C-alpha cells in the first residue's frame, strides 16, 4: 500500500480541533457512511472571521488528517479567505496524499464550505 507522508501521520495520530462546538453558528456535513467517509465541521463566526472550528470524522487516516489540517488552515481566517481553500490545497498542505485517497477521503474543504453556507443561510442571527 502507498505510504502516508509524515505530515498526514502526524495529523492522524494527533488530530487538531477534534470535537463539537456547542454554540456553533455554522455546521456542515459531507460524505456518507456507505462509502466510508463522513466529515462534520462546526464553525463559530464573529464579524466575518472564523474564530473557532472543530471537526468530527468517520473515515480512514487520510480523512482524519485532511479534516484536522483544514481546521488549522482556516482558523482566524475571514470567510472569503476560507472559501478559497480547495481539496488540492489541503492535500498540498499535508505534503500530498496517495492518489486513491484524493477523491474519496479528501472532503474536508467541502465540509467547511457546507458549514460556511449554513452560517450564511441560517447562522447569522444566532
Amino acid at each position, binding site marked *: 500500500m502507498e505510504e502516508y507522508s509524515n505530515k498526514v*501521520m502526524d495529523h492522524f495520530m494527533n488530530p487538531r480541533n477534534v470535537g463539537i462546538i456547542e454554540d456553533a453558528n455554522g455546521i456542515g456535513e459531507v460524505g456518507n*457512511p456507505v462509502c*466510508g467517509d*463522513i466529515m462534520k465541521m462546526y464553525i463559530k463566526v464573529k464579524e466575518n472571521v472564523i474564530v473557532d472550528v472543530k471537526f*468530527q470524522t468517520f473515515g480512514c*487516516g487520510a480523512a482524519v488528517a485532511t479534516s484536522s489540517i483544514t481546521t488549522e488552515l482556516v482558523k482566524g481566517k475571514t470567510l472569503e479567505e476560507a472559501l478559497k481553500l480547495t481539496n488540492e490545497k489541503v492535500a498540498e498542505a499535508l505534503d500530498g496524499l496517495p492518489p486513491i485517497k484524493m477523491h474519496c477521503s479528501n472532503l474536508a474543504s467541502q465540509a467547511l464550505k457546507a458549514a460556511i453556507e449554513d452560517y450564511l443561510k441560517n447562522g447569522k442571527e444566532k
Partner: protein
Amino acid sequence: MNQKTIYFDNAATTRVSPKVFKSMMPFFQNSYGNPSTIYSLGREARQAIEVAREKIANSINADKEEIFFTGSGTESDNWAIKGIAYANRKKGNHIITTNIEHHAILNTCKNLERNGFEVTYVPVEKNGIVNPKDILKEIRKDTVLISVMFANNEIGTLQPIVEIGKITKENGIYFHTDAVQAVGNIKIDVNELNIDLLSLSAHKLNGPKGVGALYIRKGVKIENLIHGGGQENRMRAGTENVASIVGLGKAIELATEDIEGKAKYLTNLREKAIKSILENIPHTIINGDRERRLPGNINVCFEYIEGESILLLLDSLGICASSGSACTSGSLNPSHVLLAIGLPHEIAHGSLRLSFSKENTEEEVDFLLEKLPPIISRLRDMSPLYTQVKK
C-alpha cells in the same frame, strides 16, 4: 523502529520458518543445476523436487503423480478453473462457485464469463457458510465444475466440503477447492472428501512466497495454463523454482505434523480474544460462524468507525492486522465477503481481521486486548456517527 513487532496477519502471509529456510539454502549456490539435465548437479535438484512432491502428496493423501508445482495459489486457482472449463467445453460450459471466494477464483470466473462460459455464484448464509442444498439446486446438465473454497480467507469459515464432495461425485461433476487457508490448519484427505482438484500455497504455512501447487486427481481432463517446455510431466512449463519447491515441501511437512495440537492452541487464543473483545467493547459484531471457522481467525466489526484507522493505530504499537474496509481493499467498496454475509456498507468498513499462528504467544494477545479498547474509543470519540448514537 525498536518496538517489537506483533504479527497477527498470518492469513495474509507468514514468516518463513528457520527449518524451511535452511532446507532451501543448498539450492541457490550448490545444487543449482537445472532439474531437466542429466548430470549429477541437475539430478540432485530433480531428486529434491520429487521428495517435496511426495511430502505434499502425503499431507493430503494424494499420489505423488497428482501434485503439480505452480508459481502461487492464484496460479493454481487459475489453472484449475480455466483448465477444466476449456478442456470440458464439449460436455458443458457451466461452473458453480460461491460469492465469498478469493479474487483468484472470482476474477478468473469473470474472465470465463467474458469468453462465453456461464457461472453461477451461490450466495452464502449469514454465518458465512454456503448451504450444500443451494449448490445442488444450481446443477444443470451442462455443469462441469463446482469450485468452493475450503476455508474463507477473511472470516475463516469452513465450507461443507464433505457434502459438496458427495454431490459432485453423485452428479459426475469435477470438484475444485481453494485450500490455500486450510492446508496445515485442517486435516485434508482428498480421497475421503472426493476432491478432484485442490489449490495450495507455501507462504501461508511458513514457506516462501512465489510457489504453490495444484493437486489434480488422476484421470481429470484439464488443459494446460502455462505453455512451454516439458516440465511437471508436460503439464506446467517453466524451469522449476527448485529452492522454493523444496521449501514448500518442508513447510507442509512441518505444518501437518501436529495439526490437532496446533488447532487446540490457536482455538484457545482465539476464544480468549473474542470473549475479551465482546466483553470490553460495545457495538461489536463477530463475523462468520462462531464454531465452524479456522482455529486462528477472528473477524470483527466495530460499529461507527473505519478499519484503516484501527490498523494505523495498531501499527503505531507494532501490531500487524488487516481489515476489509474500502481503504484497505484499494477500491471504493468494502470486502465482498462482508457484504455477502449481509453486513451493511457502513458496518463492513469497520472490520478488523486478526489471524494467529503458533508463533504467537498469549502475552502478545494480552497486549492486544489491553490496547484495543482505548483505540476503539478514541476513534469513536472522533466519529459523528457515534455522537448520534450516544444521544
